[in-house]
């Protein structure tokens, strides 16, 4: 995978996941789609936002300063770039779906809002432990360049 493609992919990922998750937590708490209280949604929001917005800031700082660069091939394995964000997004989506379905009267699944919060924290932790560490290589600061 070329560096430009990896950067594009990561950039779009963080932008989309931050915007959609944030919006979902802010707008849909207390609804059938997100059956958790406003306080619980707010807690989830506070877990996601510092990490994801921090990454967005790094990405956009790089985009703002860098013009044309040579498009080298990345030495980072493709799976290391793609898989952690994908898994993290998947965990959030699956948790939200189970939470919503589990709240139906006839369903006996027991995913409590507390478990949902834990799932969100887990997803963010994965990103934190993986993709965040790749960020300096994908989006190096100007001085290093």
């Amino acid at each position, binding site marked *: 995978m070329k560096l430009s493609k990896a950067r594009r992919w990561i950039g779009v990922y963080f932008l989309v996941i931050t915007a959609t998750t944030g919006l979902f937590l802010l707008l849909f708490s207390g*609804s*059938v789609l997100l*059956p958790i209280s406003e306080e*619980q949604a707010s807690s989830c929001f506070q877990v996601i936002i510092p990490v994801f917005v921090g990454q967005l800031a790094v990405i956009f700082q790089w985009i703002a300063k860098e013009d044309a660069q040579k498009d080298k091939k990345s030495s980072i394995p493709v799976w290391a770039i793609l898989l952690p964000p994908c898994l993290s997004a998947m965990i959030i989506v699956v948790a939200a779906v189970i*939470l*919503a379905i589990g*709240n139906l009267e006839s369903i006996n699944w027991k995913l*409590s809002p507390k478990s949902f919060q834990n799932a969100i924290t887990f997803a963010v932790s994965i990103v934190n432990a993986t993709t965040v560490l790749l960020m300096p290589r994908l989006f190096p600061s100007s001085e290093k360049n």
Partner: protein
Amino acid sequence: MAKCKCKRLIFVFILVLSLSFDAFGLGDSDLSLARDESQNTSAFKDCQKIIGIPFLDTMTFDPAETENKIIECIRVGLKGMQNWPGDYDSLKKNKAIAIGYRKPSENPFIPFLYRHQNFLPSVEYWGGAWGCDSIEEAREKALMGCKKGSNQCVIFLENDCVIANDLVKDYIKGTRAYIEEQKKLLSQADKLLLLQSAIETVDRENRTRISAFYFTAGKPLMIGYPDYQQDYASICQDRVFYVLLRIPDRDLEKYKDQLDRLLKLGQYGCYQRSVNTVKDYTTPQEGRMMENMMRFVRYYSFRESPDEKELIMPKNLDDALSTEKIKEVWVEGSVRVTSKELPLIPSEYSRPLAIKTNESFYLGVEVRIPDNGSKCYVSKPFPNRVIDLSVCSNDLLCAKKVINTLSDYIQQELSSEPILAILTQDEEFAPGEFAMERQFKKSHTLGGPYYERSVYMIEIWVASSENPFYSLYMRQDFKGVGAKNVCIPGKSTLYAFLKVRHIFTSSVNKNDIYREPDEYQISKYKDAIQTAVNVAIDRTCRILQGELKDKLCTIVKNRR
């Protein structure tokens, strides 16, 4: 005149001084709570000061002010009396006014602890003379004129001088008698350090947390006696009051930990009370139904000193804390529960476990003065009359039919959309009562993802008016109506009253903790219940061919 007033002041001062020493006991009664051997607690031993004892407050009165109060009271009374000459000052000298007054007496309708504050003599007769040759002659004539109407006559005015010694003496004497009685009762009273009692109960029961059920949104916190005041009215309640024990700062954390523990617990402290008597509820008359009760703790904090919309306290505590700003209050309420501990009727009044002000931290002490076994009346106040069944005054079958019809329709409506409650089974209720519930089910009233734990307590009561004396005594026979007479003897009106109480918690997710509802949720349920009640009354009225006007259905004689 100055000399005259000075003498009076000295007299009053000496009387009040002697009375103050007696009442305070100075080492006798003011710390009697602290020294009570039966309450062998560290809190009592460590106490620095007990505040809020009701009748001791009255001893802080200013003698001159008291005298002025009495004089003003008599002046006002004289002005309203027949043949009073009007402007006394303009009458010719060597004048005197005698008055016949009623001796200080207690008013049974004033709370027992405050009756002595109402010993103001009232003027019944007067006699006067003016323009006499001497003051002695004026005095004699005035007394003679007064004694035509009353034997208890004294000179009240002599020229420009007010003679009030005898009146003040009587007033002080009456007050003193009450102080003596109250002192005696206080020494015999049961004193209960509420926090310690609650902790001991919890330890004994060894309870784990259950979800709390109670809400008080939009209602002021009312400090009072929770065991009966929410449901029954009785002058016997005057014999329970609360005082506050100031706690040293070093013990603050210990007590706060205990309070936090109680707050997390939910319900505790099972006890029973009899349905139809407030006197000595622990040993009710044989055969009378008992209600299951439990206790719970609530916490309130106030940024500013709370106003009447937020906190209502008994006068003695209000007076005691008048110079301090209340910041936090921990109270213990009571709630009637089912045998499965489902809450039915929470108390409106709560007793003070602890109060934190800007200056001190206090623990609440319940003082129960021994009941003298008389002067109790009991009633069950009901504000919401829905059916006028006066035509059934002497017809038990007729009354039963009306009540049963109303009961059936209420049940039907509450079991329909959106409330969808079911009848609470296997529970003993008094006549005219039943409960419905909806537990851990989707809330159709709130909609969306919400689930609810709801209990509806329905009470139908028949009485001649909202708060008739003794109305509770007849209850065991038939829904507030005596079986033999149907209507309480001597009364021709008969109304059915209806209360539907709803206690609930809700959760946005069925797998989450059920929490107290917010104002919006409360209003949604309130509207739904009101609609159901209105429909039920309307249907009852139609089926009984009554006339519905202003939400009151009047059963018409020839149609019933």
